[in-house]
């Protein structure tokens, strides 16, 4: 590993660095690592860095592996291990079949999927429309509208007043209470607006000269050019809707309308027993409680794991636009 590390940076360094490295009083052995970095070049330091990063990654990865393994493990192994297993000997989807064949978890999963899909589509539409409308300085009421959005970044409305507003609108116990209040996030609007303003305006202008209306410009030119930012902002909204827990707890009283996160809290965090009354197809030899719980946990985190790799490459691009350019 050490040779690989010492050989690689030469490619990235500018000629000046190389010359400087040669002239610098550092011993020749150090030359290889004179990149724009902060670490020392010696082997122990590199080893230590590697170790620290390895521990960091392990701390993140191991819980996920253990949870997924336990959800796949059979009863004997779970009993033998005393609850959790790091690797299933005979992986089976028994726990998932039980949990997903009807009952509380299945229903909650459908609710969560529905809220996430509908919410993300509506949120993206509202946010993109607002961001586009705000991306043109000099238009009617541009400044007041922009300030209206910007000020929301400075305060949060508070639990009680938000609850009262949702209640006054008659949204309590309705799925809309989980979608509409969080449909426009000021930060996301600003991120998207900055992206729109950075698009080559000449293209938009030439379309306008050719007679395209604003709607056409937005849908045919601006949005197709903004896939990166749409992906990132869409991910933020989708994760927000999927993860919404407290708003559901606050606004949804009817347990039949619970989204997955509330089910997760009840049956995993608070350890309420999962039995035949809330899971339909448990059969005569039900999977261990532990596996059922971990299966619910995995179901609630798998969608995020699935979209994550596709959107990850856009993160730095999308987030930076709004945050750093500031």
């Amino acid at each position: 590993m050490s040779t690989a590390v010492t050989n690689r940076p030469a490619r990235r360094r500018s000629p000046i660095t190389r010359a400087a490295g040669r002239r610098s009083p550092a011993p020749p052995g150090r030359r290889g690592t004179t990149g724009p970095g902060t670490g020392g070049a010696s082997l122990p330091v590199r080893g230590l860095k590697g170790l620290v990063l390895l521990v960091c990654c392990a701390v993140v990865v191991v819980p996920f592996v253990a949870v997924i393994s336990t959800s796949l493990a059979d009863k004997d192994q779970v009993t033998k291990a005393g609850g959790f297993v790091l690797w299933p000997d005979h992986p089976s989807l028994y726990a998932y079949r039980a949990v997903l064949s009807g009952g509380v978890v299945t229903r909650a999963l459908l609710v969560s999927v529905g809220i996430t899909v509908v919410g993300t589509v509506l949120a993206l539409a509202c946010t993109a429309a607002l961001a586009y409308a705000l991306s043109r300085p000099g238009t009617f009421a541009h400044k007041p509208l922009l300030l209206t959005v910007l000020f929301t970044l400075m305060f949060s409305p508070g639990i009680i007043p938000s609850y009262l507003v949702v209640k006054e609108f008659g949204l309590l116990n309705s799925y809309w209470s989980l979608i509409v209040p969080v449909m426009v996030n000021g930060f996301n609007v600003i991120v998207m607006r900055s992206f729109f303003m950075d698009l080559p305006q000449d293209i938009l202008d030439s379309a306008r000269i050719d007679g395209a209306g604003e709607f056409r410009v937005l849908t045919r030119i601006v949005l197709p050019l903004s896939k990166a930012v749409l992906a990132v902002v869409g991910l933020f909204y989708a994760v927000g809707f999927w993860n919404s827990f407290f708003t559901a707890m606050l606004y949804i009283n009817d347990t039949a309308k619970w989204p997955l996160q509330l089910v997760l809290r009840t049956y995993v965090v608070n350890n309420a027993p999962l039995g035949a009354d809330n899971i339909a197809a448990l059969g005569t030899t039900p999977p261990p409680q532990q596996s059922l719980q971990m299966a619910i946990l995995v179901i609630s985190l798998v969608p995020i794991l699935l979209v994550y790799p596709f959107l990850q490459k856009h993160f730095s691009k999308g987030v930076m636009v709004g945050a750093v350019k500031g």
Partner: protein
Amino acid sequence: MAVEATRRLRPGKARGPRPRGDGGGRGGGPAAGRGRLARLRRDRFLLLLALPGIAVVLLFCYLPLLGNVIAFKDYQPFLGISGSPWVGLSNFDVIFNGDPEFVTALKNTLIVALAQVVFVFPVPIAVALLLNSLLSERIKRIVQSVLYLPHFMSWVIVVALFQSMLGNAGMLNTWLAHHGSGGFHIIGDPGLFKVLITSQVVWKDSGWGTILFLAALSRIDTSLYEAAAVDGASKTRQLWHVTLPGIRGVVVLMFILKLGDALNTGFEQILLQQAPVGTDASEVLDTYVYNHGVINGDWGVSAAVGLVKGVVSVALVLGANKVAHIFGERGVYES
């Protein structure tokens, strides 16, 4: 102040007069030359586009601010907001007279906020410096994708994961018990509650927090390192004299945002874990508002506490920003 903020949020291209006029690119002259009505007619479609979004913001961000009036009322749900009687400042008595439960919540909030600033804030900076010093881009990217992941997990998932790993029946403790050791009972221990939630925040958001610092690090002019190397600066000195000054602006900015956010002490996270440790160890202002208002129906008092908390939060942001200006940094917005 706020106008400056809008100006700064515009990318460079939009700054200053554009050759083709600032008025939306329909070939018209500068906007000032037209009547308001004409501009309204010209931009009616853009305004229509803005309408749904602005409506949501007004209804669910600004309208609740009006809901704060119940802090001055004896709110009864069946009377409604306007029907409930005014009671002046009596809802604020818990704050001014130091109601023990409120004092506990305030004390816990301040301790958690301090822990967040002292123990949580530096971690992403350290991780970013460490990542930045890696020479292999590939390893860097892999580590980044792993460390960003927990940020996208809900608090319910994070708490469930922590219970599975560290709980009394969790993986670590069963393993320790198998090997004849006493065990490690951090979950459910009121004394360790703040340590637990602080470490959960570190676990969840340290990786994601590195994004901005890494971006700042990548913008440091490499010629500065070259010059420092020519002058014989060691790696440590380069870190001290080039790297850290290079990211100081972002660090100050993030610190200000953190301070402004200080009183928001992980509401969902704490609410989820309150039951086993009791309110003495775990009640913070947010949970106080929820438990007294929504659960106990003490609407006026909890709205009063929430209002004071909100006002103090805004004051914190403005104050921290002011301090940043005094020290010659740009802060979140110009004043």
